[in-house]
């Protein structure tokens, strides 16, 4: 019997292809663009139903470009919210109604919307937030600083951290696919360090724009589908809020554990679609190791090359692609043989250093050095990382001009 394959198209007239085809198999062409422009290209290929925006530097352009996609017919619904709090509430409504939903924000916007993130997670809404991190504290900075990511770590959302515009493109597409798995079904925050990616122009490889992800199927949600018979209020109100008894406490508690377990269950999917939860760079035998994510990892890679070529010192980088779920097993495995673990970061508190210490405690006995660390928009030249390492090793620092 001859089998006929039905070709399906989304609302924009793009041919529906499998996530594996879109991410790994489709031919790609080189473009030269910014991280903000790359957000548009990813959302364009993601069969997105709804997006709500609110401007704040440095994500305004990405939000604006998603609006252009709506004009061009690629996004079903798009409007500007009243504030970030409004936006994050409104995208929750869109998601509860069964829409694939994406939004973007930065810094103070993230904090203003904060109440909504644990609500998204508890309601098991696979919303994607593209986070372009920037400084949040006074004295005011609008510049790169990823402190806000620390505040999001325990909201029950997945958190991924892209290093380049290319990775942001791929993560946005993979993010929907992983977040919408029935046994995962939690929000996904795809983060970048604002400006370092959003405003930097670089080469990216993109698949054609006449193909797109399969649309979101809300009936694959592990939650009761919300429709005319099942209103959001019925799910949110009855069991949890109104009944102060042990059953409701137990329900709440077990549900919170379940949300965290769901994030852990994302690991095999994330591993597949991101080609691993971590990336190892440099000499795998080197005693000096950097553990980093996002732009700090990029700077550490540059420093690793500088250490080797200019100082003859071997080093390596273990780059974390996912922060939630945290790749504990992979990290411990990758750090075997390391004598010093440096954690360079773009925030004042060193949240990744804390995470790394927690993961290694009782598993791997190696000194963790939370350095170098910059904040408030400061850049982290590889020369400074090299200097820090050489000083720590008690070697002569000669190469910085």
């Amino acid at each position: 019997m001859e089998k006929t394959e039905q070709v399906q198209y989304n609302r924009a007239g793009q041919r529906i292809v499998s996530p594996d085809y879109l991410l790994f198999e489709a031919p790609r062409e080189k473009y030269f663009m910014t991280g903000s422009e790359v957000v548009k290209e990813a959302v364009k290929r993601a069969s997105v139903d709804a997006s709500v925006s609110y401007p704040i530097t440095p994500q305004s352009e990405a939000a604006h470009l998603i609006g252009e996609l709506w004009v061009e017919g690629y996004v079903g619904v798009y409007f500007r919210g009243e504030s970030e709090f409004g936006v994050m509430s409104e995208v929750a409504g869109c998601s509860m109604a069964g829409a694939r939903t994406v939004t973007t924000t930065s810094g103070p916007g993230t904090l203003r919307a904060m109440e909504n993130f644990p609500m998204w997670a508890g309601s098991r809404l696979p919303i994607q937030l593209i986070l372009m991190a920037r400084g949040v504290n006074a004295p005011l900075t609008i510049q790169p600083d990823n402190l806000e990511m620390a505040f999001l770590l325990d909201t029950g959302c997945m958190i991924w951290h892209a290093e380049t515009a290319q990775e942001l493109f791929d993560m946005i597409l993979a993010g929907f696919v992983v977040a919408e798995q029935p046994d995962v079904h939690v929000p996904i925050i795809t983060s970048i360090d604002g400006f370092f990616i959003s405003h930097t122009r670089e080469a990216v490889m993109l698949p054609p724009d006449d193909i797109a992800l399969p649309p979101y199927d809300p009936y694959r949600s592990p939650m009761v589908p919300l429709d005319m018979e099942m209103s959001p209020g019925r799910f949110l109100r009855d069991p949890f809020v109104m009944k102060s008894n042990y059953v409701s406490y137990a329900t709440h508690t077990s549900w919170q554990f379940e949300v965290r377990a769901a994030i852990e269950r994302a690991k095999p999917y994330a591993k597949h679609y991101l080609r691993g939860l971590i990336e190892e760079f440099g000499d795998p035998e080197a005693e000096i190791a950097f553990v980093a994510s996002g732009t700090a990892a990029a700077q550490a890679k540059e420093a690793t090359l500088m250490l080797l070529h200019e100082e003859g010192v071997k080093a390596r980088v273990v780059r974390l692609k996912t922060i939630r779920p945290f790749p504990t097993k992979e990290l411990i495995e990758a750090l075997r043989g390391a004598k010093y673990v440096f954690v360079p970061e773009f925030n004042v508190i060193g949240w990744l250093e804390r995470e790394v210490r927690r993961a290694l405690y009782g598993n791997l006995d190696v000194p963790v050095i939370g350095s170098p660390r910059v904040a408030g928009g400061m850049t982290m030249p590889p020369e400074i990382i090299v200097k820090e390492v050489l000083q720590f090793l008690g070697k002569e620092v000669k190469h910085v001009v």
Partner: protein
Amino acid sequence: MSQPKRRRINVRIPAIGGQGAVTAAHIMATAADHAGYYAVSNPFFGAEKRMAPAESYVRIGVDPIYDRGEVVYPDVIMVFHSQVITMGKSYTMPFYSGIKKDGLIIINTEEDLLTERDHEYLGSINVKILNFPATKFAMEIAGTELATNMAMLGAFFGATQIIGMDSIEEGIKARFLKKFVASGGTQSLDSAIERKFKKKLELIEKNINTAKSAYEVAQEWARDNGMEVWLPKPQEVARV
């Protein structure tokens, strides 16, 4: 000719708002990318305004580029406006802070703006200085000072000799022919420039001519000063 040792050029472009330093960085990176190099460009991360300090950065190399953000230790500094030096309209003080040895400074000026001490220090680390009247060039060839950035980027490629005019033309065309949104402000500025020039193609032609003349002048200067090509050709370098 021996293979140049340098494998990367990090460029810092101190300018003042409105001169098109971000556009120049974008075109430089696009042109270098077209020629087969790895290239990345970015603006200074902040709020710029007309006549206030503005800065952009370009990294060009034969190996993948991971480094991001402001260029703190540049190989090349391109000063777009004399006020960067004379009025301290610069994010760094002095404007050449961090410059690496054997570097290059291109200054848009008709006269020497540096002090004796500046010359002494820069000479001691073998930094070459090209005083280049880019705005004068722009006025003469394009008929507008708005093409100053084209003259400056032409001078950069002429002095470093890493790519030919064909790639520079591609970079300029890619910037002005394709749809491009840097910000609402830039977009409206673009349309204002376009109205002024009446036709887009005319604008591109004038820009290319400006860049080309500057390229030739700087190339001659580089030869006179015994400067070698700054980077190996991308195709001569085995990809890692």
